[in-house]
């Protein structure tokens, strides 16, 4: 755990320290996610870099006031580079006792807590399982605190709106947002715009919300608060120039798939079955019908992947997506796709496992399943985006590999990436590389038979002929096929040959992906921290901090997991030790040991929560200071 003195320490240091972590928390009915994301919008528009992470309750709508009904939204923003939602909040806004109860433990010592005292009544304290009132029993002594009866002040602020008490109280979140905007010097205008649009048809609510927002803001400016707190000032970040928006991983992934469809010229057919945390992609794509996207909510995951395979067979870009248990159900069909060598993108949104596990929590424990979870010798390319925005580009990469190599591709994302948001430099779609696709249309010479398993000599991709094309009628299936004719073959040597060529095809993709580089730090040194997927943020910051401390550490982040970049072994050779943080029990470690025969130091966290920067930093220090001292 990061101590507050350490934090102080860092504050006096390099560029990435000018950041602030704010956590909004309240009942699921309190509109916390909205408050948080609007705060993020206003912050982004002020030019800060940021990262956000929503923390939903597992229940749809848990009983009000209970601890398991608490919803939270965390944002980390700063003038430096921000790649995680932050280890420990510096500021906590707690709109009821349960929110305080659940979130206080992670507030950094000395942090600021803002509470709505109006909710600290017996009934709520009891629901939150508080034995005594934490505002009075010294529980908050280690923190700076602002106690405001936000409930009462909100009711007062909106009393002219004509709303009933229940609806009026709903504006609490806007009141708090107003206060926070003041605290960090953010503009109210974007929020006004948003409220105008959202409540265009219900003026009373729009006006009440505006009134609450203004009241909260005014409260900061004019009341007793200004005596103690002058507000924080976080300047704009030094992001690369360009047009930005905030984007979640789910959004970027959905858009990336549509971009892949656009770049390849193939219509997107997306077959999926709802499951947390993969569903948002389905929802987003179903709103993109103007791009010709077909979304199909299948009867189950098997039908979902099968519909995508059928669509690819018929010449479209078939994509399916799910999470752990649903991906397990798709295994047999993914095997079919690789056996008949049809393009297919499988998005796997990892969540806490095994079994149903922790559906709303994040984890990286489905790497094994992606690499090995099929019968037979069944290699499949596996890639993983490292940040919300990267989901866009890796979705395109998945489409590219699937189409170029006529193969299913598994893209591993996770619950963190799906929901987390960051500012994203908007790409110009028109400047992205097109994805060339060849669907054969010429029939074979008279008297010669068409072999759908004729291969491109370089990529080893088979020939794609699409139903509807005259003269190329053919049959494919999951039984072994003759290398020479594509017909069913039980021949011994042929099976060996086909097994080898399937393997060689996937292995050969290594020639078609970038060589591995380091994200931060030199190409050699005492320690490399090697990660994949959503651990990018915490590793990135931990390595920068460690380097600021003078430690010889570099960050290597894998986006291609199968095949691995060709030069990976060489790159690793330059380091004395390899530290591998993963949100699982060591699945990448298995892969690296197997493929490269190297020993690594696993750093595993399976708690449903992303790594903290400090946890990785501690491990780096441990390797380079403590162990070195031994």
């Amino acid at each position, binding site marked *: 755990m990061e101590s507050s003195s350490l934090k102080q320490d860092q504050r006096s240091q390099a560029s990435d320290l000018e950041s602030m972590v704010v956590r909004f928390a309240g009942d699921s009915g309190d509109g916390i996610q909205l408050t948080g994301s609007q705060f993020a919008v206003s912050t*982004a528009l002020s*030019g800060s870099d940021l990262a956000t992470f929503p923390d939903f309750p597992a229940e749809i709508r848990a009983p009000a006031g209970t601890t398991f009904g608490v919803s939270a939204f965390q944002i980390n923003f700063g003038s430096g580079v921000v790649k995680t939602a932050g280890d420990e909040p510096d500021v906590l806004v707690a709109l009821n006792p349960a929110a305080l109860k659940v979130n206080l433990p992670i507030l950094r010592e000395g942090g600021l807590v803002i509470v709505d005292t109006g909710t600290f009544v017996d009934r709520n304290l009891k629901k939150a399982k508080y034995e005594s009132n934490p505002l009075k029993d010294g529980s908050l002594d280690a923190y700076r605190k602002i106690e405001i009866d936000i409930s009462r002040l909100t009711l007062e602020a909106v009393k002219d709106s004509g709303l009933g008490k229940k609806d009026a109280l709903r504006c609490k979140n806007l009141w708090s947002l107003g206060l926070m905007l003041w605290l960090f010097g953010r503009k109210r205008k974007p929020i006004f715009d948003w409220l105008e649009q959202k409540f265009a048809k219900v003026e009373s609510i729009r006006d009440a919300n505006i009134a609450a927002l203004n009241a909260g803001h005014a409260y900061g400016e004019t009341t007793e608060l200004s005596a103690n707190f002058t507000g924080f000032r976080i300047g*704009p970040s030094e*992001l690369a*120039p360009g*047009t*930005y*928006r*905030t984007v979640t991983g789910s959004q970027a992934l959905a*858009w990336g798939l549509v*971009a892949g469809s656009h770049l390849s010229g193939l219509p997107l*057919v997306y*077959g999926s079955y709802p499951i947390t945390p993969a569903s948002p992609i389905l929802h987003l794509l179903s709103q*993109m*019908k*103007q*791009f*010709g*996207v*077909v979304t*199909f909510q*299948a*009867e*189950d995951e*098997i*039908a979902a992947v*099968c*519909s995508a*395979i*059928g*669509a*690819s*067979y*018929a*010449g*479209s870009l078939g994509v399916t997506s799910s999470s752990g248990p649903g991906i397990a159900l798709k295994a047999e*069909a993914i095997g*079919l796709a690789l056996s*008949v060598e049809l393009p297919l993108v499988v998005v796997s949104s990892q969540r806490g496992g095994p079994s149903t596990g922790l559906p709303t929590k994040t984890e990286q424990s489905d790497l094994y399943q992606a690499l090995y979870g099929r019968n037979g010798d069944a290699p499949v390319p596996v890639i993983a985006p490292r940040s919300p925005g990267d989901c866009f580009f890796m979705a395109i990469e998945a489409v590219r590999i699937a189409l170029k190599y006529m193969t299913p591709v598994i893209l591993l994302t996770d619950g963190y990436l799906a929901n987390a948001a960051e500012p994203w*430099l*908007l790409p110009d*779609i*028109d400047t992205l590389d097109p994805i060339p696709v060849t669907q054969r249309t010429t*029939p074979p010479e*008279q008297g010669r*038979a*068409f072999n759908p398993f004729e291969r491109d000599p370089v990529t080893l991709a088979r020939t794609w002929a699409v*139903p*509807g094309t*005259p*003269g*190329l*009628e*053919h*049959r*494919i*299936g*999951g039984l072994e096929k003759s290398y020479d004719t594509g*017909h*069913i073959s039980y021949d011994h040597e042929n099976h060996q040959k086909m097994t080898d060529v399937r393997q060689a095809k996937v292995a050969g993709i290594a020639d078609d992906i970038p060589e591995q580089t380091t994200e931060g730090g030199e190409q050699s040194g005492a320690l490399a921290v090697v990660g994949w997927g959503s651990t990018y943020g915490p590793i990135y910051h931990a390595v920068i901090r460690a380097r600021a401390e003078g430690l010889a550490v570099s960050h290597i982040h894998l986006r291609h997991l199968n095949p691995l970049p060709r030069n990976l072994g060489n790159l690793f050779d330059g380091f004395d030790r390899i530290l591998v943080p993963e949100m699982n029990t060591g699945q990448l470690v298995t892969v690296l040991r197997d493929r490269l025969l190297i020993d690594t130091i696993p750093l595993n966290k399976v708690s449903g929560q992303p790594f903290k920067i400090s946890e990785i930093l501690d491990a780096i220090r441990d390797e380079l200071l403590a162990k070195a001292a031994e």
Partner: protein
Amino acid sequence: MNNVQTVSKPTPKDFATDQEVRWCPGCGDYAILKCMQRILPEIDARPENTVFVSGIGCASRFPYYMETYGFHTIHGRAPAIATGVKLANPELDVWVVTGDGDGLSIGGNHLLHALRRNVDLNILLFNNEIYGLTKGQYSPTSRIGTKTASTPYGSVDRPIDACQFALGCGSTFIARTVDTDQKHMPTVFKRAHAHKGASFVEIFQNCIVYNDAVFADFTDKAVAAEAQLHAIHGEPLLYGKEKNKGLRIKPGTVQLEAVIIGKDGVTLDDIIVHDETDKTLASLLVNLERPDFPMVLGVIYANPESTFEAEIHKQIESVKAESGKADLNAFIRQGRIWEVT
């Protein structure tokens, strides 16, 4: 493989591949294959536009023998894969070939949903009341007491009736025919093909090796006329060599009754006229039990509704029409964006 480059009308031979047909000699599948190769030219099917999608089983080997596009997929999933094919290209003529195990055991759920969604597929279920390919275990259509490799003491599961199931799934087209009946089967295939939406056809198919003669009580030449009723829309439900037997509504009930014209005062007017759009009648007809009643064959139910893939694409087109030319660059720039300079 032959090369269809000319626009000449294909013949049955053009629909046959060069692959050796590998069913057991005497298997009912041969007759179904022959019938299919025969009717496709008659309905002006183009080989390049025709797709056979199958699961796994003896029946599911079918696509290998059709000189069209074909996809031999995995066990039970053919309706789901075929749905994807139709979503991608609604113009294709898609036939699904499945067995009683493939379609009603492992694949029951996909069959259900393809039927209820009314995907425009022609679904042929080869019912031999047995798992052929895996060497003779009982299937969900096997009758109680069936002795097989996995039920040496006889099966105890109550069987499912394929057509009754299809009705329960909201199917819009239900028909039955017999493998050996080369006069009846073509008419049923043609009707199935003509029906827009999911057409469900149960074919009683003899597995000569593992379940020989299981349908003999109504398919044997000697008894067929007395044991089969060929339902034809708009015509009275008559059967028997003399066409003097028929079905009528048992007065005051919602039950059917098998009667003989001329006996007990029954006249032709008492006999129900088949209305293939009447779901209740369909339900009564598929529920009739042998041997007290004839086995009803032909198009039992047909009530077209718009198809799933047509509705999906209609929606896409209407969104497109409303939104104008879609621009991804513009789309991702909707909402809050800002400039960093």
